[in-house]
């Protein structure tokens, strides 16, 4: 995997006329993982979108080396399509197909089921399959454990550990405990205004 790096300097985020947080700095290299914790409404999701370059920061700058992959509450899979076809679209875009990973995520039996009939946890696992197929070095995960059962939580923790071990980096915004050796923690509450 190519070298990757994610540097944020003195970030501030504003929603409407409220400044949510300010003075956030972050420097992650290959193999690093960081969990952002905060209560609801402090700006975890906004931070993830700023780091992804999808939303402008109110102040400060973000530098990314390497492709970023985003996992949030929207799976970005066509709700009317069967899961297999919806994932095949992203496989064609990303040029990455991994049937072993589908089995590992427990999706191989669901490929004929339209995405809108999947449960929250199944959609989350489908979105993970899309993320893994993207082969991005920088993973930005917004509440990756929502709706997952205990076994799937352990699987996500293992997948993130594998990703970091192979030289990727990961930012996890979650209020749930996330077990990962060497996980850095960043408490957004301390920066909230």
């Amino acid at each position, binding site marked *: 995997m190519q070298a990757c790096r994610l540097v944020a300097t003195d970030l501030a985020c504003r929603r409407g006329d409220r400044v949510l947080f300010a003075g956030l700095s972050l420097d992650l290299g290959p193999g690093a993982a960081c969990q952002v914790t905060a209560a609801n409404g402090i700006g975890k999701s906004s931070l993830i979108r700023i780091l*992804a*370059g*999808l*939303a402008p920061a109110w102040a400060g700058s973000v530098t990314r080396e390497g*492709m*970023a*992959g*985003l996992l*949030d509450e*929207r*799976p*970005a*899979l*066509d*709700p*009317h*399509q069967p899961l297999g076809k919806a994932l095949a*679209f*992203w496989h*064609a*875009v*990303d*040029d990455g197909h991994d049937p072993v990973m589908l089995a590992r995520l427990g999706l191989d039996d669901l490929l004929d089921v339209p995405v809108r009939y999947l449960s929250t946890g199944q959609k989350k696992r489908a979105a993970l399959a*899309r993320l893994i197929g*993207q082969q*991005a070095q920088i993973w930005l995960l917004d509440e990756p454990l929502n709706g997952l059962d205990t076994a799937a939580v352990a699987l996500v923790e293992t997948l993130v550990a594998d990703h970091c071990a192979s030289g990727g980096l990961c930012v996890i915004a979650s209020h749930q405990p996330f077990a990962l050796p060497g996980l850095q923690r960043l408490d957004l509450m301390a920066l909230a205004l």
Partner: protein
Amino acid sequence: MSGALLSILKRDLGLLLLGGRRGGATLPLLFFLAVAMLFPFAVGPDAPLLARTGGGVIWVAALLAAILPLDRLIEPDLEQGMFDQWALRGIGEEAVIALRVLAHWLSFGPPLMLAALPAAALLGLDAAHLRTVELGLLAGTPGLAAIGVMVAALTAGLRGGAALAGMLVIPLAVPLLIFGAGSLASGGSSGIALTGAVSLVLLAITPFAAGAAVRAARG
């Protein structure tokens, strides 16, 4: 990159042309034919009057049929985060929008031109008028597709966006209608050429205008 764009075009065509449960291209087509069928009922069986006004009716019906699929052009993809995922992969909104215009045109332009044949029969248009209508539609429907995608991007995510989109398309489509339907009265090719010119301008600005709208809506 080009492989990715090809996949996106294939997906767009699958959703817009075939449509699955969402109706695809058939609903606007049936709507278009229904208008062409209702008009003689409403004005009565006066053949010269029908022949004189029929071309204009086909144009208005085409414009209204182009409004029908607006709410599924941009909004679902924005809502499901597809545009975010494309942006992360370095696929620009402009490229996605240009493909969407192409797919939208393919899903209603050529079908409408085909449906104009039975519509012309219902309205009693002669061969020369039909030819002008078909050429006008060929020149004008790409512009209608561009307006549709642009307005769909501008109103995506707004409450009541679909109704607003319909209201916004109509004034923007007036130049196309004037030149397109006007070419029937003058019988000349200048109206069709001007229709084509309006379409080209719209096709040129739509990827940038709609791309900026999608980025702004993403926020």
